[in-house]
């Protein structure tokens, strides 16, 4: 399987709003905790290391910082 980046959300605005809503009233630490839990839950739902790796590479793309050694070394 490979990462599907075609538009898949029938109601994209609603999906974005859901994400925003979930963070409402949380301080930065709690927000970070929520994101971490969400990533773990969705990563398990995806259930495929190859797809996860592609998603991480895509997410990391263009962000400043050192090369992501973990991404390639984890192969």
């Amino acid at each position, binding site marked *: 399987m490979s990462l599907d980046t075609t538009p898949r959300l029938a109601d994209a605005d609603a999906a974005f709003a859901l994400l925003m809503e979930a963070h409402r009233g949380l301080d930065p*630490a709690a927000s*970070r*905790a929520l*994101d*971490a*839990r969400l*990533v*773990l*839950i969705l990563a*398990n739902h995806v259930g495929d290391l190859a797809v996860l790796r592609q998603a991480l590479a895509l997410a990391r793309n263009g962000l400043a910082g050192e090369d992501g050694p973990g991404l390639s070394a984890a192969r």
Partner: protein
Amino acid sequence: MPQAPPRYPAAPPPASGTDHRRVVLVGGGLVGLTLALDLARHGVAVTLLDEEDSVATGSRAICFAKRTLEIYARLGLGPRMLEKGVTWQTGRVFHGAREAFHFDLLPEAGHEYPAFVNLQQYHVEEWLVEACQAAGVELRWRHRVAGLAPEAAGVTLAVETPQGPYTLRADWLLACDGARSAIRRALGLPFQGQVFQDRFLIADVVIRGEVGFPAERWFWFDPPFHPGQSVLLHKQPDDLWRIDFQLGWDADPEAEQQPARVAARVRAMLGPDVPFELEWVSLYTFRCRRLDRFVHGRVVFAGDSAHQVSPFGARGGNGGVQDADNLAWKLAAVLNGSAGPGLLDSYEAERIAAAEENILHAMRATDFITPKSDHARAYRDAVLDLAADHAFARALVNSGRLSRPAVLAESPLNSADQGGWAGGAPAGAAAPDAPVLCEGQPDWLLRHLGGDFGLLLFDAPDFPTPPGLRPVHVAAEARPGALWDHSGLAAARFGAMPGGAVLLRPDQHIAARLAMPDPVAVRAALERARGGGGLVP
């Protein structure tokens, strides 16, 4: 230690000032003693040098894994370890004040040895010394290797003793001199890897009488009695409990080892009413690193001198004992001419792969236990929060992936499966145990394997084995001359059909599986398992 440690008599240096031995082993620690004993049982004369005159001091390795126990069983020490050790197989993980989950390390029955026994390293070393003495190992206590010069066909060592120095020539030098190996440094070999920025406090605590903890491994993340850090608890024999407190990098090593300070931490954990005595306190930081190569001409490294891992997972001692198990029969075969020196290349290939696996697991566990950044901690805590209610998150909790036997899947000594095998232990795996009946008596399969090459034959007719290969018959029905696989577990665990054969190495690892063995194929697999270039008689 509960009783005074044994003291062994220092050996005088040779009168002539020089000496020559075929096999010299430096380091009478856990791994060196195991290797010396195994070599002696293979008929190799070994001279062992150690700079001390006793066994390990204080609390070091405590968790001896099933595979290690099986290796010690082959060397005659298994029952003693089982009798003295604390058997356990359940691990519990706590997060904050509540249990996140627990796991069972050996959920199936039908193995002679349990997943783990806890036992102090000094007890095991003392028994190993006795066994080495009985097996004729020459033990030279208080002989310190101070320098060495490698040569084409050996090594010359400069040895120091309380009664003066001498020169020792060795055809083979086995470097089991631990994490700070002087031999490694004398050869200028890089030993690189990662240091973890954390400090752990070890306390061995004597608690007599009733204790509210069972014989299980308990691991706490962020417990109320030690907030923000982790704690590990293990039961040892002699009413001794081992507690590891994570302290963080900023902890003051001097102050933290003050008995009053340690006692306060222990009291916070046990509660105010539990009387205890501190028996041992030490502080450690840890690293994961290894040598690039384990074999350097006539110098062979094993144990902590070759690789070092963080303790979570109990992979240091257990990994080193598997080095010894792997090396002994190979060096013996090279020395007695039944294999060429190339066989030692397989020691390196197999044990470097195993060390890599141990380092990988140890690093991952350490990263989980000691998050290096805020985001790492956020993910770690998210996993722990989810783990109480969700099985998928439990799989992500890493409080140490406990030592499992290395599967030597890529070994050059393995042959490809011949014919069809219905699962079961593959080539490269250590042979699984199974209950059998031997002449009507309850027995265990592994007791009949190892020491030399064996051909395990499942319901096979008489089979002509070449010299040096011992047939072991297993049968589904009671039959004279065969072990009775009355439960069917032996055949199932090997994935064997009637008529199948499994070639086992002297270290009980599987070298080949032949569904329809014929003498030519068996000989070829045996030849390969001896390193290919051997002079098979």
